[in-house]
């Protein structure tokens, strides 16, 4: 087990090094440097720059050095806890990312806190009696909500709940400090889109368990239905959804982008999009590293958790 974990972490580090090198190469092109200049100075100002001025500007930004040189400096700095400087926000990347990541963590916490119970209950109820009216209607709801893109849900909720009925704040910019009400719409949007997938997984898993021999035996033995479900079926049915839930962390990191951008919530996703559009390379780099860490860690947790929950499976 320890060996396996070590191998997985080693692989993660290798992937991080590789991914960031590719990003440095991409952002090293002439077009990208020009893009940063345009984003920072404006199109009119850039075309008024002489070639010499432009070179001086690049030098001031540290962009005149070849990418491999900047790459190794950057890696060295990371070991000293310095993630570089944001061109757009004019601040150190480390605290900036930490701050935004914390905001996204709050959002993610509420999404999971709502989504998992709803999805599991829906899935279990539907899977308990496969083919029943309840199964069919719950399954349809979970397919249907998963079929509406987040952005459409987000706008619909804003129009109806915020601007139409005035029940909830329209944006989550938190201008006057943290306000839990502003979080409602973003959380709701993500939950609506995300719960269907877990619910369907749970339903499939539950349905399979319900047809297995030992449940049939338990029912035939005359145990109360409730006890069969809670005592026997549930534990086994939840193994598969567990791995899916952990992997949803990775989905959430993608899903938050559009939701955070739309609701103007200052989180990780919005920061990433802004940085990518601006060409703010050190922010993109740091954000990507974090994304890779989250993706790999959730993968590892999911694998380990699966082994833990299901002792019959061992890694080869």
């Amino acid at each position, binding site marked *: 087990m320890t060996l396996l974990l070590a191998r997985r972490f080693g*692989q*993660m580090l*290798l*992937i991080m090094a*590789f*991914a960031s090198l590719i*990003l440095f190469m*991409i952002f090293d092109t002439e077009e*990208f440097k020009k893009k940063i200049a345009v984003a920072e100075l404006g199109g009119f100002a850039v075309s008024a720059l002489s070639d010499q001025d432009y070179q001086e500007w690049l030098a001031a930004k540290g962009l005149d050095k070849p990418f491999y040189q900047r790459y190794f400096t950057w890696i060295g700095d990371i070991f000293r806890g310095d993630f570089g400087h944001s061109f757009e926000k004019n601040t150190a990347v480390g605290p900036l990312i930490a701050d935004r990541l914390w905001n996204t963590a709050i959002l993610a916490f509420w999404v999971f806190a709502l989504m998992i119970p709803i999805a599991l209950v829906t899935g279990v109820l539907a899977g308990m009696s496969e083919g029943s009216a309840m199964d069919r209607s719950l399954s349809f709801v979970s*397919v*249907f909500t*998963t*079929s*509406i*893109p*987040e*952005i*459409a849900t987000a*706008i*619909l909720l*804003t*129009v*109806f709940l915020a*601007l*139409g009925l005035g029940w909830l704040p329209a944006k989550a910019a938190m201008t006057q400090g943290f306000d839990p009400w502003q979080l409602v719409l973003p959380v709701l949007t993500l939950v609506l889109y995300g719960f269907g997938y877990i619910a369907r997984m749970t339903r499939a898993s539950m349905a399979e368990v319900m047809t297995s021999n030992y449940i049939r035996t338990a029912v035939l033995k005359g145990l109360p239905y409730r006890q069969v479900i809670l005592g026997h079926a549930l534990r086994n049915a939840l193994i598969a959804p567990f791995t899916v839930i952990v992997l949803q962390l*990775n*989905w959430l*990191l*993608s*899903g938050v*982008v*559009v939701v955070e*951008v*739309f609701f103007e919530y200052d989180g990780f*996703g919005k920061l*990433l*999009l802004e940085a*990518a*559009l601006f060409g703010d390379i050190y922010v*993109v780099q740091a*954000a*990507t590293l974090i*994304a*890779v860490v*989250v*993706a*790999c860690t959730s*993968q590892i947790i999911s694998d380990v958790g699966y082994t833990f929950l299901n002792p019959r499976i061992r890694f080869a």
Partner: protein
Amino acid sequence: MATVTVDVPERGWLERLESTRAVIALILLMWVPLNVYVMFGRSFGDFADYLLVPAVPATALLYFLTLRAFRESRIALIGATLVFFWLFMAVSAPFLPLVDPNEPIAPFTPPLTEARDHFFLLGADFKGRDMLSRAIWGCQRVLVWGVTATLVAYVIGTMFGLLAGYLAGWWDEVISFIANVFLSFPVMVLFIVILNYLGASGFNIVIAVTFASAPAIMRIVRGLTLDIKTRDYVFAAQTRGEAPLWIMLVELLPNVRGPLIVDACLRLGYTTVAITTLTFLGLGLQPPDPDWGLMIRESAKTALLWKFSYMLLVPALSVSSLILGFNLLADGLREISLKD
């Protein structure tokens, strides 16, 4: 695609389509004109509309065949109907009695009202363009780019999956590592970085989707290949001295396509969501031609009032119904193959 030349262990739903050759011909007859029309229609000038003439009957016929093949699963039938509805709209849009989707007529006209001698069934947007016309024309780009992107991702993913699974060894190590690199990026991060690098356009969406989806497809194909390559008929082919490439394409590929098609339907749904989202973020398809993602993007700015919400509902429900179609189709196909 070559026809099946070996004994298939079990006859799945796929084989029950009347004749594989005819179906492929029909698919090509529907798909090629639509693709050419959307991607290169401009260079044909006024002649462009005629391109779609053969596609209309082909789509109708295909729908009919699909209904027969999937008759035992109601879910698959509903899914197929939704998908074919939009396919049919896509190929027949130039022949329907619709006004020009880009023509401004009467801004902010609510649905079911008449303004400036035009009856707006679904209302008009902030520029006064007919929503019905835009919704119908809008499906072309989503369908063409969504399906093309998924298809390309499948071709590439399958190719590498077969290579990794069949050749194993170093091939497997290298391909799997590269796939792992891409899989460790959250999808949206990958999309944003790639599209920002290449610029926003339909072709670049294809590339971005390929990078994002092909590694996962490669993993599935690799797993299936590892399983299948130990079968007798593969050994038989190897002893006959057939080339590895031939074995991969003729012996292995036809036997992994069942699960792949189910996965493809799901992935089509994800790709459609992704394209809509990217277009909303300004990284996807560009105006002025109608597109659902763009309609959502525009309405997000202009239609933020209760009375204008139809501007948002029309594209949102359109795109959702297509995605729902893909999802139901996937569920239905899975159900059918489980029964087999």
